[in-house]
């Protein structure tokens, strides 16, 4: 029993590692996919003198074979050395860290809001299947999934910040005051939540519908157990798809986040990524891409492991029929 658990965890983490190796290879190649001399991308086109280019070639070992360069890059990356940002001129990690902190706060807030709202409305919808309330939730979640975040964000910004003055307009406010930053991140988080929660509502609803019609629900009802207890039992059984998709949303959330940050002028990873992309700051783009890849791979692996540990029987049923 224990060994099979360990085996599952090990294989899942190994899978994660394999895809990370593949992704890191692509991310490293970014420098070479861009047209022209990679040394020029590293110093920026403006300052490129032949001497400097030669120095950069030597410093970054650009004349070595491709694979040994990749090996060196990975080795440096493991000790968090991604070179200097072309734009800022100092180490990439120090440059990106403050932006990353803001984005993680925004994404965390969004995940929290969308899990609470998504699961709650999904349960309500499943318990009122076929009624007006269910149809209304269904229609609004469909609308939510199909609204592009930046368009929605702009409409919300206009209505709630400009017209009604409830939320601040742009930026993240006073950085030394965490509450002020949180307040500035609220409307962007709501914008992201509308799209995210909508998908969770759908998934929670269909997972709960299976449980509502289950035998144990009938028995619990027959024993006149309180509704809250029944819902808790149902939610526990419906949790695997909900958890899995929450993990998957994290990836799409980072994509949507890029746009929302640009709408609300939030100096997070998304804005940094777009400005670095247009500036041609390859080391920064590489670091952000690799960081997100690690984060997304690890989260999906951890969610899978968590789902497995919560309910290992579903995985074993196929192997042994006797339970």
């Amino acid at each position, binding site marked *: 029993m224990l060994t099979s658990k360990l085996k599952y965890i090990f294989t899942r983490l190994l899978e994660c590692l394999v895809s990370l190796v593949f992704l890191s290879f692509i991310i490293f190649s970014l420098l070479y996919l861009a047209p022209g001399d990679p040394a020029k991308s590293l110093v920026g086109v403006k300052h490129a003198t032949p001497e400097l280019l030669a120095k950069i070639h030597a410093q970054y070992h650009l004349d070595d074979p491709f694979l040994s360069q990749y090996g060196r890059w990975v080795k440096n990356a493991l000790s968090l050395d991604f070179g200097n940002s072309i734009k800022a001129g100092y180490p990439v990690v120090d440059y990106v860290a403050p932006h990353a902190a803001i984005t993680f706060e925004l994404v965390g807030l969004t995940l929290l809001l969308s899990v609470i709202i998504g699961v709650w409305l999904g349960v309500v919808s499943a318990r009122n299947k076929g009624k007006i309330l269910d149809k209304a939730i269904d229609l609004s979640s469909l609308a939510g999934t199909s609204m592009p975040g930046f368009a929605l964000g*702009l409409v919300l910004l206009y209505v709630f910040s400009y017209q009604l003055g409830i939320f601040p307009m742009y930026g993240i406010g006073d950085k030394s005051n965490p509450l002020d930053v949180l307040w500035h991140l609220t409307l962007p988080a709501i914008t992201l939540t509308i799209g995210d929660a909508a998908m969770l509502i759908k998934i929670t609803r269909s997972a709960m519908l299976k449980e509502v019609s289950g035998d144990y629900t009938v028995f619990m009802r027959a024993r006149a157990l309180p509704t809250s207890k029944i819902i808790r039992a149902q939610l526990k059984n419906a949790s695997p798809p909900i958890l899995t998709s929450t993990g998957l949303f994290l990836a799409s959330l980072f994509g949507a986040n*890029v746009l929302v940050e640009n709408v609300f002028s939030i100096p997070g990873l998304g804005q940094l990524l777009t400005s670095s992309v247009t500036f041609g700051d390859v080391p920064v783009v590489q670091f952000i*891409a690799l960081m997100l890849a690690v984060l997304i791979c690890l989260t999906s692996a951890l969610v899978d492991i968590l789902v497995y540990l919560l309910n290992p029987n579903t995985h074993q049923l196929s192997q042994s029929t006797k339970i």
Partner: protein
Amino acid sequence: METLTNNFEKKKKLPPISIILSGVFLLIIITWVIFPSVFAPNALALDIKNTKLPAGSEGHLLGTDALGRDVAKMLIAGSSSAMIGPVCIAAGSLIIGLLLGSIAGWFGGFLDKIISAYADLTLSMPSLLLAIVAAAIIGGGYWINVLVMIVLYSPFDIRLVRSAVIQQKSKPYIESTRMFRLNSFRILAVHIFPNIAMVVMVNFFLNIAYGLMSMSSLSFLGLGVGPKEADWGRQIADGRELLTQNPAVALSAGIVIILTAVSINLIGSYLLERSGVDE
């Protein structure tokens, strides 16, 4: 038996009001795309004297933008750039999906493994982030974005077609065509395709909505169409600066994008429900 009568009753009923409204709205957008010059002649004409007029100004229902262009006309002229790309994305992704999906599903084995591995890997990555990075490296531009999107969208179509083909493959009617030694292409085209056409077409339709979201997102970030062209995503980016002078620039484009995407999704999921396929 019960589902049969249910389906029968459903067919007699008129579609719900939300579907009819969505259909009407999409028809308007389609006429804009086909006849831009009828509804919005000289949409790109500059008028330096009348810049940033608020909505409701004389002769300009939605006001003018920073270059003095009529916002209502820009909205109509921007419809083709907003819709044609997404339709091409959906079509390209459909063609790749049909090709690779049916190869993977029909022949199985090693080919299936390679194609499925490609699809799984691409699906697990955030497509918008990839598109932004790809646009930066290759240099961006409208049609390059369309190509990148086709590559990123096709894995879903591949999986859809693959699983539909595998599902049909084991059915008796296909076994019998095999006994007649019909060639694979003929079996796929004549016998299997009609059975999966509905799912694939609905997905094509829904992909247009996702394509609209992706393409306008890229334009919004300045990675799509050129700076002076009419495009909804572009218009939001430009209008964001004018939110205090003429909010209609950004708001009208934002609302039109939202309504178009929601309409397509509503009709798509309605068709999916009607076709009797579970999601």
